[in-house]
């Protein structure tokens, strides 16, 4: 017995150490580097070929000191390593061998920028799963699962970004993104954010309404721990910040974030999200499709993700054109100027696109915010101005025991002033439907 234990124990221990050493010696990135070296050498002859073949197989990394990153992506992606591939171009078509598409690396030297600052993922990792690769389609996901045992990198909240979300990374530095052809999704996102009233409730770097969170400072940088995925219907592996943001445009936010209106879990009733269901048509064009299409949702998500914080030296920024103020704009009419003000301050958040339909407001008396086209003509110009300046506190609940409605009219007197206010009033009275005379 003791003799058997002695022998088998020693044999097993020796075997385990061999396995440990083998695991360490044959790392998954090595074949890629070896293949690349061979593929590169095949095209050459003589001394060049010898030089290529004598290149050591080792972990290669970019120390992007300015950005505080260590990226080891080029350990496998040798086509983007400026030592293995000084020209940064090759004719290979397969990943991980092919060189970077486009001329991005000409303007963004990979030894200075690294990869992660644009692509996301875990640059320090040296295996496929740990790197945080993200498939761009279900088909690719299945293929990766088969080939690499793919799953999202554990405990890494910034997986790689696919198109078009990666455009958000460009926006981090490029203030001129709206005029760049490569970042049209992000530009579209910004445009949608400005026209659908997001900034009536949310803020963007501090600018916007006071009702909900700052999309740039908070939402884009929200840690996963703080997100309650209970009602998202997402599988565990899809529970990412990106999907969370995007779902807000594709699903009913009341479903995503139902609160606790009946006080089942909390002692106080809590209203569901104040956000609209953008999967429904807008009141302005009830016969059209959803107010925000799938592409719109992607564009908005892309733009919001551009606000993810990264420590980028100021010298890296590219100045964009300054935002135009009301005085700098040239309007063809007062009404058009008023429409611009209506959009700028996000009035559409509650009063709908073109002021045509009031949005829903949980447990608010009547359940909907007023549709301005209908209600404006009840006021004189002075009354309406005062109403906008003072705001409206929520006092009227549909169910007195229910939760406080999430939306309310804030006071605008410090924001909309002077000519902006007057043109807004012009605009509102211009679209008001005539009251019937009794």
């Amino acid at each position, binding site marked *: 017995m003791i003799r058997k234990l002695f022998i088998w124990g020693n044999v097993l221990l020796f075997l*385990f150490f061999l396995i440990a050493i083998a695991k360490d010696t044959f790392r998954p990135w090595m074949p890629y580097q070896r293949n690349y070296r061979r593929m590169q050498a095949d095209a050459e002859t003589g001394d060049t070929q010898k030089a290529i073949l004598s290149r050591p197989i080792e972990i290669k990394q970019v120390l992007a000191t300015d950005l505080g990153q260590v990226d*080891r992506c080029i350990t496998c992606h040798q086509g983007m390593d400026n030592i293995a591939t000084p020209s940064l171009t090759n004719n290979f078509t397969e990943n991980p061998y092919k060189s970077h598409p486009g001329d991005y690396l000409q303007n963004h030297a990979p030894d200075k920028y690294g990869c992660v600052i644009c692509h996301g993922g875990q640059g320090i*990792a040296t295996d496929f799963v740990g790197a945080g690769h993200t498939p761009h389609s279900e088909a690719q996901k299945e293929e990766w699962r088969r080939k690499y045992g793919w799953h999202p990198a554990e*405990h*890494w*909240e910034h997986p790689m970004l696919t198109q078009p979300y990666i455009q958000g990374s460009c926006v981090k530095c490029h203030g001129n993104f709206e005029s760049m052809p490569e970042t049209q999704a992000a530009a579209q996102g910004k445009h949608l954010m400005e026209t659908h009233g997001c900034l009536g409730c949310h803020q963007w770097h501090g600018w916007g309404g006071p009702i909900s969170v700052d999309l740039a400072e908070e939402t884009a940088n929200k*840690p996963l721990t703080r997100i309650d995925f209970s009602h998202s219907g997402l599988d565990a592996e899809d529970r990412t910040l990106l999907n969370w943001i995007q779902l807000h445009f594709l699903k009913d936010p009341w479903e995503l974030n139902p609160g606790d209106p009946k006080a*089942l*879990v909390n*002692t106080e009733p809590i209203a569901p999200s104040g956000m609209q269901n953008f999967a429904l048509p807008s009141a302005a064009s009830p016969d059209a499709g959803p107010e925000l299409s799938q592409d719109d949702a992607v564009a908005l998500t892309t733009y919001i993700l551009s606000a993810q914080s990264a420590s980028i030296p100021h010298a890296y920024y590219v100045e964009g054109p300054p935002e135009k103020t009301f005085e700098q704009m040239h309007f063809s009419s007062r009404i058009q100027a008023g429409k611009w003000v209506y959009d700028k301050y996000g009035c559409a958040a509650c009063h709908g696109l073109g002021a045509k339909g009031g949005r829903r407001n949980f447990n608010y008396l009547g359940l909907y915010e007023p549709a301005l086209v209908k209600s404006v003509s009840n006021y004189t110009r002075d009354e309406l101005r005062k109403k906008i300046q003072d705001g409206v506190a929520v006092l009227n609940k549909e169910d007195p025991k229910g939760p406080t409605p999430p939306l309310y009219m804030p006071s605008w007197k410090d924001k909309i002033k002077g000519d902006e206010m007057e043109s807004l009033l012009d605009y509102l009275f211009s679209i008001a439907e005539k009251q019937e005379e009794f």
Partner: protein
Amino acid sequence: MFKLPPLPKPEELKKKIIDSQIWRSMFRGGEWKDTPRDRAQHILGNVWLHLQPSRVRKHGLKTTYTFGLGGLSFFLFLILTVTGVLLMFYYRPTVDLAYRDMKDLEYAVSMGSFIRAMHRWSAHAMVLIVILHMVRVFLTGSYKTPREFNWVIGVVLLVMTLLLSFTGYLLPWDQLALWAVTVGTNMAAASPMLGAEGPFAMLGRNNDVRFVLLGGKAVGANTLLRFYVLHCVFVPLVAGALMIVHFWRVRKDTFSGPIIKPEELPHDKVDTWPHLIVREYIGALLCMVFISGWSLLIKAPLEEMANPTVTPNPSKAPWYFTGLQELLVYFDPWIAGVVLPTLIMMGLMAIPYLDPDKQKGVGRYAFKERPLAMTYFLFGIGMWFTLIFIGSFLRGPNWDIYWPWESWLIHKPPPPRTWSLPIVWGLAVVGAYFVIGMVLPKLGKPDFEWKAALRNGLMGAIGALALLKIGTHLTWEQLGYIAFFGYVYYVFGVLVPRRHLATQTIGRYTTTMVLVLFMLGVLMKMGVRHGFHIKYILTIPQVNFNI
């Protein structure tokens, strides 16, 4: 032509080497002849082996006697020292670098992932094995005279093991580390008098015990450095010094075993080399096989980088402290985190001195001879591990109960609203618990019929339930808790001491019964919380004193 001299025969060569000046200067003794003298010399002449006697009793060799747990604890300590030193080559204890170094160990350093996994899993194993070693020593009565003091040192070594593990927990600087240490050190802030948040607090947040532990008010860069030095230098030195004493006393106090009667002499001793050494080797070997196999299969966990502004829900202490964390549901932190652990440690150290019979049940698992000691010790150990199990596996977000197969995404209703007894009632109840608790076992005869007593108790419990159901609005769930905890008290607070303790001298009876009442008191508090939704039995808010 040049000719090589003929090669010497293997035996000649061996003799030549062994007889050479170099060999003889390094190793005492000449050629190995496998005589009793040689075998003894092998142990006595070797600095590493001479902590063992040259001959041991056969009794001590049986695997099922010691399970080699003490030796395994020490072997795990050795694994941890070696892997720990290797890890130190790559680890820098600063907030910016620590986590990155962990990732480097994972992805770039040769064997880094394997060695880190070994270190991590050995550490968990060591805590478990040290506890089991203590249980074994208790069950075989090996702590009895003349080994009382070595048991005390053993308890201190257990604390050192927990400290080693706890200080090491912070070093990876991930979320798991930061928040586990936050939970652990917040309990220190609840110490009576010495902690800023405890009862009778005298010190502020700037100079209380938590501040000393953390080097700040929250876990930060200072804490990391402090824990690094504690983990790598201070605690290992103290533990090492105590281990030397521990082993020395084992050797000097001799291995425990049944007393040898004069007629049994000469007793059944065998040579340590090879009989004991081979068993020790195999124990260590199997341990090493297990640890390295496990480390090959499962990587050491590493979560997101530590972020003091993002609190995971739930934040759990390291597993060996989740039992205490679970008690936070029922007690204020100063009780769960300070008073109870102190009482447990003091109680453990007191065991050999409270034990009335110095001879009974030494050297074997004698349940029948030491029913009282065995019952309470196993009861306490069972409670400890049950609480750890609940805290580690059954607690989810907001510290609600989640079965292991339940999704943590489900929202649970809040716990029922609690209330506290007014102070006069509180004093009365606590006083009555201890006074009646001391008296009850003394009433009635020690030689009662067990079966009848248990049955009567059950009948009594059911009767009380029926009365309560009729007379109050308590739910069946509450009644179930009341019946369960009441019955536990009846058995372990009345029947067992009545049978085994009531006949002791008054001094021993009082000391032991107080400890028993404290232990059962923990359960009783759980009982009144679940049964009557009572938050505090006695609360004096002026001095932050709540129980």
